[in-house]
């Protein structure tokens, strides 16, 4: 009997849905009417939301300060370019590393906090950083943005163009590669240990699990991914301003993840698609009150699909394929 092997193998296998999902982004590039700049934005928001998913979906820790890491990555990429390091790929990696190191330190600070206390501390750290960057106009250019950001062509060949063709493919490739690594990570024993600590830290302690170490590491990883998302934004728009660190961004990414569904990695991208498309649509309808509609969408999603759009869609699909064959009721142990 090795049905248990198949059970675990199924959890690791790439499904047709996943392949279709990534293929769709490639197809979108070749559709002439595609708004590539908007799609790049969606990918970046999606990757940013995936970084939060590691923390919230897998480890069960909410954060109101994820934009701090996004911003650190964005500014690192900006400063690297300003001081002459304009090669994008290494710039992206260095930005992720810088944000990751800050994340590891933050992980030690927030150790032992959860719930509202954690929300307040992450919010506080985020606000400190935002104010510092916005007020240090001589260092950062303040709200006008960091002057002198320009990024060299990718691999020395593909220049970042106005239409955003290079920017889109570069962002897509980076998001896909980072995603593949994260996908493997959450399917490793480390990923299972995160879920275990999310469900029951006390039981994990009594299994001898190093839950403090795991918390610090996942904060670092999450921050590194957020930082790379921020760096992608700086590199593809060749611009960085304090807005990347704003509390609004921290709140938006939480909204995106909750709408899409936490704990699946794909929820971040699905949420970003819904959020950014609708934001554009609502903003076109009414440029002042568009957040009203976003708020309504959030309320409706959470009310009717408590775990987000993605699990709701998956559940709907499963029911259509396999009409209501419930597992037989199990009898209580003797």
């Amino acid at each position: 009997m090795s049905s248990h092997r198949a059970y675990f193998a199924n959890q690791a296998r790439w499904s047709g849905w996943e392949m279709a999902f990534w293929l769709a982004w490639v197809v979108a590039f070749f559709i002439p009417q595609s708004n590539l700049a908007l799609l790049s934005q969606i990918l970046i928001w999606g990757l940013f939301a995936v970084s939060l998913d590691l923390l919230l979906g897998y480890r069960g820790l909410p954060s109101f300060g994820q934009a701090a890491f996004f911003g650190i990555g964005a500014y690192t990429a900006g400063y690297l370019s300003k001081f002459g390091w304009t090669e994008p790929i290494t710039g992206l990696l260095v930005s992720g590393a810088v944000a990751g190191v800050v994340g590891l330190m933050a992980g030690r600070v927030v150790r032992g906090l959860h719930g509202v206390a954690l929300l307040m501390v992450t919010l506080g750290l985020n606000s400190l950083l935002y104010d510092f960057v916005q007020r240090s106009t001589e260092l950062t250019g303040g709200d006008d943005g960091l002057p002198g950001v320009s990024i060299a062509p990718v691999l020395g060949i593909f220049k970042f163009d106005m239409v955003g063709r290079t920017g889109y493919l570069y962002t897509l490739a980076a998001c896909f590669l980072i995603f593949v690594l994260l996908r493997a990570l959450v399917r490793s024993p480390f990923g299972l240990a995160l879920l275990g600590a999310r469900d029951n830290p006390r039981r994990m302690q009594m299994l001898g699990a190093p839950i403090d170490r795991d918390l610090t590491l996942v904060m670092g990883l999450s921050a590194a991914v957020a930082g790379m998302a921020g760096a992608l934004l700086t590199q593809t728009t060749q611009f960085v301003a304090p807005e990347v660190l704003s509390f609004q961004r921290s709140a938006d990414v939480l909204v995106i993840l909750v709408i899409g569904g936490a704990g699946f990695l794909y929820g971040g991208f699905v949420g970003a698609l819904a959020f950014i498309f609708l934001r554009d649509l609502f903003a076109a309808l009414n440029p002042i009150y568009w957040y009203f509609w976003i708020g309504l969408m959030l309320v409706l999603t959470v009310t009717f699909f408590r775990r987000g759009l993605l699990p709701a869609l998956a559940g709907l699909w499963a029911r259509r394929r396999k009409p209501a064959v419930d597992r037989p009721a199990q009898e209580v142990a003797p």
Partner: protein
Amino acid sequence: MTAATVLQTVGLTKAFGGLSIFKGVDFSLHAGERHAIIGPNGAGKSTFVHLVSGLLKPTSGSVQLMGQDVTRATPQQRVRAGLGRTFQINTLFPSLSPLQAIALALCERDRLTAPSLRALARRVELLDEAAALLARFGLAADGEGPTGLLPYGKQRVLEMALALSLKPKVLLLDEPAAGLTTAQGHALFEQLTELAGDTSVLFIEHDMALVFGYAQRVTVLGGGALLAQGTPDEIRADPVVRKAYLGH
């Protein structure tokens, strides 16, 4: 007795804000024995298990595990030194399946949980071991659904299976049969006797039939102090215990 001592407390004391609820308890658990702790509510039984497992730190006194002083050790270090425990209230992973839970326990035992890109699915020997363990506890058919949806009785069995999956040398069971019917309680203890091997077991239990049926020695706690210790027969005959606890 000449049997080796696997767990020993000396003058173990715990005070919460000046209120001492646990006063100078000297206790020892012998290798391979099944030992029950009984006592009325508030006697400090669960506190004792928390102190031994490291979830609480004693105010004074010491805890020795396998001859090592672990008084200041973290719960994790004690687990590594051979301690396992269950909780009075199910302390499981509701959204994970029992297979995942046992696999996780084995991964922690083998220290495989550092970040890596190697899928759990590829560690087939470990997965085989997890499935075999579940099967021995009679949970083979329940391995793949979420633990939170299992019937309560099976969750209770899983609680014990998780603790035993680490092959502890000392196992602490905090009211393992809590919430079970009498028949389920007996079945659980039968399973324990069959599967615990040479693990020394210390269990808290209220059901006297289970205590006198499965324990080789019994310790009676009352008001945070050790009232009596002995074989089931000695305890049954002890006038102090009869008066303070058994009520006849």
